[in-house]
């Protein structure tokens, strides 16, 4: 028997046969092992490149930590007129409007401008009494969480000569107020106000006619739930101020109000979707294509009707391009899950307007999922680039030059509520935009 085996082993063909058997067995084993993992978790739908070749970002945090993180709004502006940009922040965990003063560049100091404002959603800086200083109009939700109660208000923080503020309620007995914008709407030379009453199942759009010191008369413009933002600007180039309004809460409509003079408006719905899950999340007015008229940017991705929200393929950003004569062309410029806020700025310093988006609800278990992205504008073609993957659950974003290098930077804030985990959150984060050296 052994002799026979020895003889076989010495044959060349035997080695070939054994080799073939070995290969077949190995393939069977490998295949068999593969059975164990043949059902896999589906991967992310739209991978976003994490870094652009031309721009890099340096992340820094601003302000002290706090046990609860609920930043509802951040704006970049030079509040003290010292030539350096500051931040105005609404913090719903501290019920406060905060000023992060930057002086000198890179050194930040917090000053509480007002507290005891239940869930402030937005702070509008305007010289409302035209006395030469900057007053602040606060949009007060009254409750961060869904409520149809009449708990909203519009509060004026009137700046005094000594720098302090006196507080006045300009509008009360309304549902949750999400936004207030200012502008001379009736052409009488003083700033009036537009008020977006979000409410919950019921909301409305009002304009408040300025009738002298701290006297505002409310006028009803639209009855719709979930009005988030109401930016003001001259949309038709006729020299007066018009209003644009985004309606959410399943209605998902975009309205414009053409100023007809003397406080009258002609309204027009310029966009809607029957996809009630789309989650309109805000509205920004900007001349994105620099053609001399104002366009609109609409982030879509607020699906917090369920606490464990998930990114959807229709989330992202729409550009509502002004074609003149009250005609608008709607085009999608980004797909980005959970898009919650948008801002416009020249991120790469090439002289045109880029776009920044942040995400509130996303596939945060995937550590490669960006929470902040920017859209590089190349002749109105927008390419999406990730800025960062942390922090997460971002609700607000602003663009502006924060380090004095002439390039626009990005700032954002997280918004947290139970029962979501509070890992990877940050109150205020800045991303300084820098050119990649080659």
């Amino acid at each position, binding site marked *: 028997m052994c002799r026979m085996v020895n003889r076989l082993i*010495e044959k060349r063909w035997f080695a070939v046969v*054994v080799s073939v058997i070995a290969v077949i067995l190995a393939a069977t084993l490998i295949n068999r092992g593969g059975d164990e*993992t043949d059902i896999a978790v589906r991967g992310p739908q739209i991978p976003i490149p994490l870094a652009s070749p031309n721009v890099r970002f340096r992340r820094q945090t601003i302000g002290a930590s706090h046990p609860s993180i609920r930043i509802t709004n951040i704006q970049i502006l030079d509040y003290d007129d010292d030539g350096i940009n500051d931040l105005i922040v609404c913090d719903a*965990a501290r019920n406060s409007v905060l000023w992060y003063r930057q002086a000198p560049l890179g050194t930040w100091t917090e000053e509480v401008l007002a507290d005891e404002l*239940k869930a402030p959603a937005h702070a509008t800086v305007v010289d409302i009494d035209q006395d030469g200083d900057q007053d602040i109009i606060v949009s007060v939700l009254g409750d961060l969480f869904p409520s149809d109660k009449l708990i909203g208000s519009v509060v004026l923080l009137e700046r005094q000569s000594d720098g302090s503020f006196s507080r006045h309620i300009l509008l009360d007995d309304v549902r949750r107020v999400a936004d207030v914008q200012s502008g001379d709407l009736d052409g009488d030379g003083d700033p009036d106000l537009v008020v977006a009453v979000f409410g919950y199942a019921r909301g409305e759009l009002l304009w408040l006619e300025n009738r002298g010191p701290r006297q505002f008369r409310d006028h009803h413009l639209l009855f719709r739930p979930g009005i988030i933002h109401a930016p003001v600007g001259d949309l038709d180039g006729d020299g007066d101020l018009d209003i644009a309004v985004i309606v959410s809460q399943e209605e998902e409509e975009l309205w414009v109000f053409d100023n007809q003079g003397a406080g009258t408006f002609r309204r027009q719905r310029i966009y809607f979707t029957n996809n009630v899950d789309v989650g309109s999340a805000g509205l920004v007015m900007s001349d994105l294509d620099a053609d001399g008229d104002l366009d609109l940017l609409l982030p879509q991705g607020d699906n917090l009707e369920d606490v464990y929200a*998930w990114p959807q393929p229709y989330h992202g950003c729409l550009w509502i391009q002004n074609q003149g004569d009250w005609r608008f062309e709607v085009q999608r410029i980004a797909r980005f899950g959970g898009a919650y806020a948008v801002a416009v700025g020249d991120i790469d310093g090439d002289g045109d307007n880029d776009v920044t988006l942040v995400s509130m609800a996303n596939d945060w*278990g995937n550590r490669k999922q960006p929470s902040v992205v920017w859209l590089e504008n190349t002749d109105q073609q927008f390419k999406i680039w990730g800025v960062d993957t942390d922090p997460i659950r971002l609700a607000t974003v602003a663009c502006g030059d924060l380090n004095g290098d002439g390039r626009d930077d990005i700032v954002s804030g997280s918004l947290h509520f139970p*029962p979501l985990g509070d890992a990877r959150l940050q109150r205020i984060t800045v991303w300084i935009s820098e050119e990649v050296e080659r």
Partner: protein
Amino acid sequence: MKRLSILLLLLVGAELVGLALTLARPKTQELPSVDLTLLGDQMAVETLAKMQQQVDRRDPADWRQLGVYYLTYGYYPQAEMCFRVAWRMAPQDESLLLLQAISLDRMGNKHEAIDHYRSAIKRNVRDAESYRIRIAHCLFAEGDDEAAILELEKMERLPEARLLLSRVLIRSGRASEAQELLQVLLREFDQGVEPHSMACWAAEALADWETAYRHQNRALRAQGNIVHSPLFRQEDIVRRQRHSNKVFHDRSIELEGMGRIEEARAACRESIRVMWEEDMVLSYALFEIHLGNVPSAIELLEGAIERVGSSPTTLDALGDAWNLAGDPGKARAAWLRATEMHAGAATHDKLAGSFAKTGNSSRAQWHRGLADYQRGKEAWFANRVSESSELFRSATLQSANYAPGWYYLAETYRLKGDEAAAHNAYQRCLEIAPNHGRARHAMTR
């Protein structure tokens, strides 16, 4: 050659042994990985971790169960994978089709979700019919409005479908047809916010401003909703509550009802340990007050204010605590802060009582009036017009300089058809607040 052949034979032997072992071992599917740090509720984390450890990977029921919990806590791709594994093991369990559909829907894979919903409905899976509306939503999300409308038309008997259809019709220049649909809805759901809102918008589209105003007004005094969360979301909520700090909170309420206050407090404390929530801290502080541990209650409430800001409810409780601590001044200060944040009638009642004790009868009367005003508004928004009218009348008698009280009183008169009384009340409102836009508007109608 000999050495090579021996090596090859050994290799074949080893591979045969390996193959035998592999064949002898049952096939097992790897568990999907999940990031549990995304959850804030420690009890949910523990539940999921335990479930992952205990799952029998050969048992489709275990995969299904794990999938259901992943679905509950927002791990949709992982849930979908679990249901796929379970479906492969137990293709006779047709409910897995529906669960896959729900997962795919949540993940945004609408096309596949529609296919799965349809398969589930075809096989008469329990409750599957109630998911038809999700097919329409998925079609809208896919941008296929025509198909979505067809789907909704098949479900016209469902109030939610009729409502969705009405919206589509109003926007597509068919407001009259929408009005017909809404007439039926309004007969069935006169208390609903949505049918009145939608009827307002349909009338607006037809430039029937009087009808629009009437429905808008009625929508403001409505409370019910037609559109409810889908069944799976409702089930998710129940499941979450079963594995969250809510268990302890519910237990504490139960114990409180049985008069076992100390045990109720302990359950409440446990709830906060699992997950910090303002409402739970408030309950805990109220137990402390009940048990006479007032300093502890004050510390808890001030801690909550430090953490998430003040609210009418925490300030109201803080006022109670200071009052029990023998400091009515601090109590009033807290209650007054609460009223600045739109606290309800109870806080005004407390302020009225407190001011009465100090002999400040005018302020006591003012707050009594505001308490009636708050009760009046509750009745008004629940469409209890006569009751609200009485309360607003009482409010205006006691807080005569409070303009909103006169405005709402006027509104109740208007609805009752007493135009003269309404006019007078609007007039009183405007005398106090000349810029009250709604009163001015009502006067000019």
